């Protein structure tokens, strides 16, 4: 089933066409890698899906009801079930790991509901479980700002899972991670993709190979090739783009 359908989307920044008639469909469940040279529009694609950037033309349809995400605000899109991990880990450094995770937990988001919110035993258990999953169980009451770069990446992945989204958009998850951590990340993403849709942007080809999934190659804001990694790396256009003409 198609969960997300981006069709005919274009965006121009100050005359520069960042996304050019882009069409991508993501199923549920599915694991998809998006690759492409710098400036190909990978992050802008995520910006459009999450409502950060409004496209000039085109539609972004979501779910069974084919809701057009272009009309929704960032928070509405997030509530609809789209979670995002940013390229640069952005956690709330001033607060504890526990506070970061509990903000991300899938609970009601309105001010009045949050004001009277008290963590249930289920919430606690879920937070601990997530913290263990991302290797931060002994760090729950530490400031997020005191974590290492890699741990912040993990925390953000934990926050993403805490939201329990139907679609995870993950921008360069392996940056700054050790080989062992990368392996853990691939496992985690593959596991998540058994029940959800996961879209991963990554530069590291070994990482992509380990994900072992369908690959979309972006170039100059549109899809250049799509298929298995072996298939796209044999594509002459892709080789030209990556190796220079």
């Amino acid at each position, binding site marked *: 089933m198609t969960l997300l359908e981006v069709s005919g989307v274009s965006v121009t920044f100050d005359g520069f066409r960042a996304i050019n008639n882009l069409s991508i469909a993501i199923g549920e469940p599915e694991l998809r890698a998006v690759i492409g040279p710098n400036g190909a529009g990978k992050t802008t694609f995520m910006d459009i899906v*999450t409502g*950060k950037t409004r496209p000039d033309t085109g539609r972004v349809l979501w779910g069974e009801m084919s809701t057009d995400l272009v009309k929704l*605000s*960032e*928070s*509405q899109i*997030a*509530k609809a079930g789209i*979670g*995002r991990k*940013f390229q640069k880990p*952005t956690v*709330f*450094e*001033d*607060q504890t790991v*526990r*506070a970061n995770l*509990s*903000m*991300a937990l899938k609970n009601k*988001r*309105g*001010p009045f509901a*949050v*004001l009277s*919110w*008290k*963590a249930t035993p289920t919430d*606690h*258990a879920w937070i*601990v*479980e997530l*913290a*263990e*999953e991302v290797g931060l*169980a*002994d*760090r*729950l*009451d*530490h400031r997020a700002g005191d974590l290492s770069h890699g741990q912040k990446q993990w925390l953000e992945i934990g*926050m993403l899972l805490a*939201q329990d989204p139907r679609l995870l958009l993950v921008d360069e998850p392996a940056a700054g991670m050790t080989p062992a951590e990368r392996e853990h990340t691939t496992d985690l993403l593959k596991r998540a993709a058994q029940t959800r849709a996961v879209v991963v942007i990554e530069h590291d080809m070994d990482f992509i190979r380990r994900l072992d999934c369908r690959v979309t190659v972006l170039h100059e804001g549109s899809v250049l090739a799509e298929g298995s990694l072996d298939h796209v790396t044999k594509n002459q256009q892709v080789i030209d783009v990556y190796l220079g003409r």
Partner: protein
Amino acid sequence: MTMDTTAPAQAATPNRSFLRDNPSVLWFMGLLGLFTVIVTILSEGMGAGVMSTNMVKILGMTLCLCLIAIAMDVVWGYCGILSLGHFAFFGLGGYAIGMWLMYARTEIVIRDNLAQGAIPATETEVAEAVASQIFGVVGSSDLPLIWTFAGSLPAQLALVVLVPGLLALVFGWLAFRSRVTGVYLSILTQAMTLALSLYLFQNDTGLRGNNGLSGLQNIPGALDVPQAVISVWFFWASALALGLGYLLFAWVVSGKFGSVIRAIRDNEARVRFLGYNVESYKLFVFTITAVVAGIAGALYYPQAGIINPAQIAPIASIYLAVWVAIGGRGRLYGAVIGAAFVSLLSSWLTGGGAPNIALGPVRIIWTDWWLVLLGLGFVAVTLFFPKGIGGLFDYLVRKQP
């Protein structure tokens, strides 16, 4: 994914009580209670008479300033909205209660006067006499529309809350919806404050122009009670309001709500991607703090005795930000310390309490030099002690990891 019940993290599961998590609240309440008892014992009206009535009023007013300072700390220190308009809400609360105080007292005086005449006065005559008594100073004798409920204490008390609350709600809704943030939002709030004070300066706005409202220290229904006693009543009311306000805000900022607004302060875009509607949180915080500011103003001005538009001018709101910065943003007791310390120091220095200093050719006369000192203090705190005076407590209490 398995659950490890021996994980240390779970041992520290935070389902502890609110007070245990926030020991500073208990400390604050204890000190506030102690302070109230001491002032009462020393006061002229109720106790030994060591402390002058004027001093009791100054301390009572200081408590009101502490109340608006914690409101400012929540909106700025916690939620990151540098509002330069909260003193406008304070002033509006003052005006709302001042209208009743002035109207009701004038009415009592007029009735007494008219009662001495041969023919009993009609209600219309009383109302007309009250209006011309209050508005003669601005050359009018009609009661403006906004004074419709001035004779009713419950109505004016409701306005103390409603006027600042609604103004904040409408203004905040417009500003936050357009995603105005940072310095632009500060400028916008300052423009609102300036517009309001300039408007009130005009004679035909129905609030007596630059004369403001006066005689507010005389409480209708208690006109025979000496000021020495009334000052203690208001001191108690101010202490109670500060205590309740502190509890309310400590509760608001302690839980997940506090987490979310601090997250908004640090990175509001990220909070949106977590699914929180940032605007509604900001609006909630802006409005509730405006309401508390209004209540603080309604308690302050009967002690001050007079309110005029100059007190709503933007500079007052800037002082408010300075108090909070000096006291320490992001902790409620810091705001209280800042407001109390700076405003009391200011009254001492400008009230002739401090000796002037001769430094060679320059003579430091504190009434003139006070602002220089405040400015230098503000710069020094910003540069060298970003946590403010409240930050000193971090050295006393070793933070648990």
